[in-house]
């Protein structure tokens, strides 16, 4: 993977780049080194000025402070929100409700919450079990598999496509657009990239129109009929939410499943414990969520302000590295150890405050089932020493290739 347009990082405290491959590969060490050197909040001029707070306390307080920090830019880009042409600004933002601020946020979120509540998500369990087993059936009797390319990346796509009412077989397209939006933040803004954004918009316009003409029982039809403040959602709002559900529902959970399987491939004691005690899987999944939390969100500073002794400027980006908060030893005992039966676990993998991940119940279901089925079918597996595990770059971190050797199957 190549460097970003900003080039190699010279100093992590004053010139960090969270879009660089070096950050993706070494982030735990980078955070520790920064904190140990007395720098609990790093800064970079990259992306027009960005802050990286590292303690649970700071991340918690920013997530709660919607008066000073706007969500209109949840993903850091090379352009500030105000520099993006034709952009829908605060309090709605381009992909509501993740890009929305109160009080609009409350209403935009409230209309989506019932569809993702535990009692609506739990009934998907059998379907997810079937999807996972089918993916493993498709591997045949191969001894060398890729658990990211052949397993983790497909599970969330198949579920969210069905929920939205988009063709399940378009998974490759969706993943291409996810990479475009989330992993390519530091790439040149070439015509080819712009062309891909156009294709994404055209694809969505086609399917939204099709749902208008042929309404059905799915989330796109629901959004086209939904109301906010007594009026139908604007088309921009409805399409923005479809984009959000598609993008946010895919590589986050794919990363969570992949990191869990990577841990089990590299920690045989933990793997054996879960094979022998599948009842422990839900507790172990919470620990994988804590230790390998995939998602970092971003906020935009509303006005010049002081925060913990640093001067933040209007429109600076502020990253919310929930994965770093989850490894803060002030909040967690043995924060750097993965303890699969950890009982006390207030991790922030799904965020804190009003933007708590809308799909967290679905993500947890998919992670639990994916781990359970994988261990049932492959009770012994390890990383193929001749191949490379690769990790995504940007604000969502997880393995994009997982070359495994299957040592036993059931």
């Amino acid at each position: 993977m190549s460097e970003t347009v900003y080039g190699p990082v010279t100093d992590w405290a004053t010139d960090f780049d969270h879009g660089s491959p070096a950050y993706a590969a070494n982030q735990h060490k980078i955070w520790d080194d920064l904190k140990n050197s007395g720098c609990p909040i790093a800064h970079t001029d990259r992306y027009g000025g960005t802050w990286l707070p590292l303690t649970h306390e700071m991340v918690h307080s920013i997530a709660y402070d919607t008066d000073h920090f706007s969500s209109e830019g949840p993903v850091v880009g090379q352009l500030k929100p105000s520099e993006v042409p034709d952009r829908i600004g605060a309090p709605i933002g381009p992909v509501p409700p993740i890009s929305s601020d109160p009080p609009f946020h409350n209403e935009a979120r409230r209309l989506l919450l019932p569809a993702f509540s535990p009692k609506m998500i739990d009934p998907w369990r059998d379907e997810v079990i079937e999807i996972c087993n089918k993916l493993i059936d498709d591997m045949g009797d191969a001894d060398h598999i890729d658990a990211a390319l052949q397993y983790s990346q497909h599970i969330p796509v198949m579920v969210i496509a069905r929920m939205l009412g988009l063709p399940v077989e378009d998974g490759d397209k969706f993943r291409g657009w996810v990479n475009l939006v989330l992993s390519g933040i530091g790439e040149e803004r070439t015509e080819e990239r712009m062309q891909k954004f156009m294709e994404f918009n055209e694809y969505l316009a086609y399917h939204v129109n099709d749902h208008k003409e042929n309404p059905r029982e799915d989330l796109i039809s629901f959004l086209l009929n939904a109301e906010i403040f007594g009026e139908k959602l604007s088309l921009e709002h409805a399409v923005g939410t479809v984009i959000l559900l598609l993008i946010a529902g895919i590589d986050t959970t794919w990363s969570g499943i992949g990191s869990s399987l990577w841990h089990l491939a590299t920690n045989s004691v933990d793997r054996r414990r879960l094979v022998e005690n599948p009842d422990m899987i839900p507790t172990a999944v919470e620990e994988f969520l804590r230790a390998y939390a995939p998602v970092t969100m971003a906020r935009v500073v509303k006005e010049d302000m002081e925060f913990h002794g640093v001067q933040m400027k209007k429109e600076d980006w502020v990253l919310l590295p929930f994965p770093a908060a989850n490894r803060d030893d002030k909040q967690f005992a043995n924060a750097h150890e993965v303890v699969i039966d950890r009982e006390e676990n207030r991790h922030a993998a799904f965020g804190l405050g009003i933007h708590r991940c809308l799909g967290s119940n679905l993500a947890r279901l998919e992670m639990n089932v994916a781990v359970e089925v994988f261990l049932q079918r492959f009770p012994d597996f390890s990383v193929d020493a001749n191949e490379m595990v690769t990790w995504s770059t940007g604000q969502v971190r997880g393995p994009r290739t997982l070359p495994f050797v299957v040592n036993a199957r059931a």
Partner: protein
Amino acid sequence: MRVHVDPSKCQGHNRCYALAPELFDVDDYGNAFERNDGVVPAGLEDKARLALANCPEFAITIEE
């Protein structure tokens, strides 16, 4: 022992309902509330403490 979920703090992480469904339930929006006026039946005290220790929003309190 009694448990209480502060509805102004709960963001619907659903940890209490997953860990102690005997003590907590969730509404149509996925937000949690205590069952049975929060009264913890004998023998479920540890589950109440477990739920408290796993709420990311610090929304649960216990009266001993």
